[in-house]
């Protein structure tokens, strides 16, 4: 009977990584120290909005006149503007900020204290390049440049590693692994849980998996390690039947990549496979063109985000207290709109925190202001909260990571106060 020895795999993997890292300087950066830590902790779900999500039209500072001055075509009517249709107005949150109407599904969570918002946050990377800014954020750095090559989630996983860890500590939904998981062991990228099996006749499946294990366990390169991990995950997932998963509490996930990803995340969490992190992506935020105000690309994206998050939180129900969801992006967008009903790359944007210990119902922002003298030299919202402060607080209080200095190298995170302890 085929049963890959979990410990056997781990030992091979550990040997492999050590041998690998010691000899090649580029890969040495991926070498990560490992220490056993106490659990339990939350499951961390990260949603990366790729392309630079416009914080100003998502969580709108509608009390700022300069918001309307800078965006004659893109701005959204304030909550009190009776000339606009009710569904085309900002939904007030605290008298200064309000949600884009497409985020209405999240309003109850905010009001019930289950959703916290950070605004004017971001990295120190001023290149306004997607790839630099994403790399900085995913590597857990102030800005793209020297520093560990591995991702911040990978380092978190390594610094909390224990021998009894699941082969499926982290999962990414999609065809490729994001940089935040670069260098992480026990991680797979998958498109769909139901498809995640060897597509061979059932009678042959174990035989082939055993044969593959024979081929992959002798190797000592990245592909060999990946193959070994995949086989261990196959063995783990064998125990669940994702096709039969029924969301609880009448939760309705939108039929989008994000909706499907969160639905499968919920399935994995419920299956108790030892999943610690799920990394999801949602593209389409690079709205140089046709961003629109209440109708346009941003509105469609926010609609998907709001409905997907709401469905996930509804589905998880009380179990949401053991899950923390973080929504983030690489940068925000220019305060002034451009000529194509869009916005160019800017600086600060927003983050969402849901579940777990999120001290919801509040917006954490050292608001820098939108008057021209308050913006930076390019005309962008200034970053006043470092994104690492938020992530560090989540890792420390919800993920029980006591070794933050190995995750956020050379950085002392400042308390934000948005997350309550377990």
């Amino acid at each position: 009977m085929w049963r890959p020895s979990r410990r056997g795999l781990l030992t091979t993997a550990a040997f492999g990584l050590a041998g690998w890292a010691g000899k090649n300087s580029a890969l040495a950066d991926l070498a990560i120290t490992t220490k056993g830590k106490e659990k339990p902790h939350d499951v961390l779900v990260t949603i990366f909005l790729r392309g630079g999500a416009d914080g100003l039209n998502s969580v709108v500072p509608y009390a700022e006149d300069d918001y309307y001055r800078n965006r004659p075509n893109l701005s959204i009517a304030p909550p009190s503007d009776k000339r606009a249709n009710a569904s085309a107005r900002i939904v007030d949150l605290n008298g200064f900020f309000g949600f884009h109407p497409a985020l209405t599904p999240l309003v109850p969570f905010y009001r019930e204290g289950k959703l916290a918002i950070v605004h004017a946050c971001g990295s120190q990377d001023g290149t306004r390049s997607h790839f630099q800014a994403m790399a900085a954020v995913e590597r857990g750095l102030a800005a793209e440049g020297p520093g560990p090559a591995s991702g911040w989630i990978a380092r978190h996983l390594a610094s909390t590693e224990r021998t009894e860890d699941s082969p499926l500590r982290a999962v990414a939904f999609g065809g490729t692994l994001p940089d935040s998981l670069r260098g992480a062991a026990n991680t797979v990228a998958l498109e769909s849980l139901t498809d995640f099996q060897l597509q061979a006749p059932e009678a042959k499946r174990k035989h082939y998996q055993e044969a593959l294990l024979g081929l992959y366990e002798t190797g000592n390169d990245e592909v060999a390690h990946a193959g070994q991990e995949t086989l261990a995950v196959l063995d783990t997932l064998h125990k669940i039947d994702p096709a039969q998963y029924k969301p609880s509490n009448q939760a309705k996930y939108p039929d989008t990549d994000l909706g499907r990803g969160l639905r499968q995340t919920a399935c994995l969490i419920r299956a108790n496979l030892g999943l610690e992190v799920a990394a999801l992506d949602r593209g389409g935020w690079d709205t140089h063109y046709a961003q629109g105000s209440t109708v346009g690309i941003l509105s469609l994206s926010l609609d998907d985000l709001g409905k997907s998050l709401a469905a996930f939180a509804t589905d998880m129900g009380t179990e949401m207290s053991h899950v923390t969801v973080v929504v983030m992006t690489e940068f925000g967008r220019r305060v002034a709109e451009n000529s194509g009903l869009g916005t160019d790359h800017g600086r600060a944007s927003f983050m969402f925190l849901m579940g777990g210990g999120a001290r919801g119902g509040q917006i954490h922002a050292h608001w820098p202001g939108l008057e021209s003298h308050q913006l930076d030299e390019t005309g962008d919202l200034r970053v006043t909260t470092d994104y690492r402060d938020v992530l560090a607080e989540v890792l420390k209080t919800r993920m029980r990571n006591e070794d933050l200095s190995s995750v956020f190298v050379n950085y002392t995170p400042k308390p934000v106060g948005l997350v309550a302890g377990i």
Partner: protein
Amino acid sequence: MKLSRRECLELGALGAAGIAVGGCARVANHFAEHHRDAALPAGEVDETTRLVNRLTFGPRPGDVAAAKKLGQVAYVESLLKPDDKEDLRLQFLLNRLDVFQMDPYETQDIPENEVMRQLQQSAILRATYGQHQLRERMVDFWTNHFNIYGRKGLAAFRKAADETTVIRKHALDTFPNLLKASAHSPAMLIFLDNQGNVAGRPNENYAREIMELHTMGVKSGYTQKDVQEVARCFTGWVVERRFLRHRWAFRFDEELHDNGVKHVLGQTIPAGGGQKDAETVLEILSAHPATAHFISKKICDYFLGTDGDKWLGRTEKTYLATKGDIPAMLRPILTSCELIESPQILKRPFDYLVSALRSLDADTDGGSALQEHLVKMGEPLYQWPMPDGYPTKTSAWTGSMLPRWNFAYALSSGQIGGTGVDWGRLQHDGEAEKMFELTHARRASANDRELVRKVAEEFNQGDDGVVGAGFLCIASPSFQWR
């Protein structure tokens, strides 16, 4: 010790004839002794097999023998000077793809999914059957370098023209010609929002990416101000939309152009230049040393992997001396020792899929059933949404091994519609060693023993054994690398 491979080859020829391995292998042995980890995975790797693997989408049966007969240098030269004759079977298959026969504007009559299907079909067919494999590799390279996301706006309908008149036409031309063609390509102007880049309210998207991703590379000396000035130069570079004109052709719209004076990278572009403003920008960017560096780095890494930097300096100099002549930049890299000796490079899913089809001499229509496997492996063509193209880092791809195995099984067992392997025609004789040689285009070495053993076990299972045998060879760790 720096030896060009040409020198290595000469040394090899001077040395004992009859020894199968030439000068490079001697260098390789030297390497293996001193840096075991840096050399190839232990075991003999046939030089010509490696060469063919590195320069093409993988050897088809007989390719390595043909390259051996030609000699390595002559083989490389033949790849660098492709003629325009194509395989008849390929021409026949391509002729059926409407999107490449029609005017882009007319292709809107075809459903978008069908357009995407045909685009990918063409790429798969050309990579699999194309005679001019180096050009096909460079088409793959430039397609990612000048990446266009087919699912944005109506980009899909314009991509076929971009593919033909930009990427394919200039893949082995000069970089400035390629860049210029791309900048005039409606698909690119639409994808990077230059349609909305007008006087007074510039849209920076194309201006930023042309500097960051297409030419100079990030942090190479340009500033945010330069981005804004370049955007002003490109105002009015739009796509024809007027009635009774050649719709969707490139158009410079004087009315939308910012005719003021601009300053780009320290050079003044005088007022009133019209379309010439951005043409000047293209010249400035093409001639910039940062561009020579950035383009050279990407090309070196593409062929040499982690050893790319060893040829970076020389390739940069060649770029500057030849004004970006692509074959001139490629020649020294392709005849270098490092091409054969550098650490192995992971095949991306497209490479992996095509190399499997080629090694098994599969018949394929390149259609949707096959494309579905590219989706699952993570590289559906023309569907990377960001302008930087699919990642080249190994770590981006190792999370999805299972879809590769599933493709290998589906191919071997004949479960991909429109794609088939005729096991009866291939030379394996039910022997594990021969099956290995068929798929890997070389003899099995000590390191391959486990694979050969498992393949032999499959053959022992009886009639159906060839399916498992082929599956394991294609799914094996060694087949994932080039």
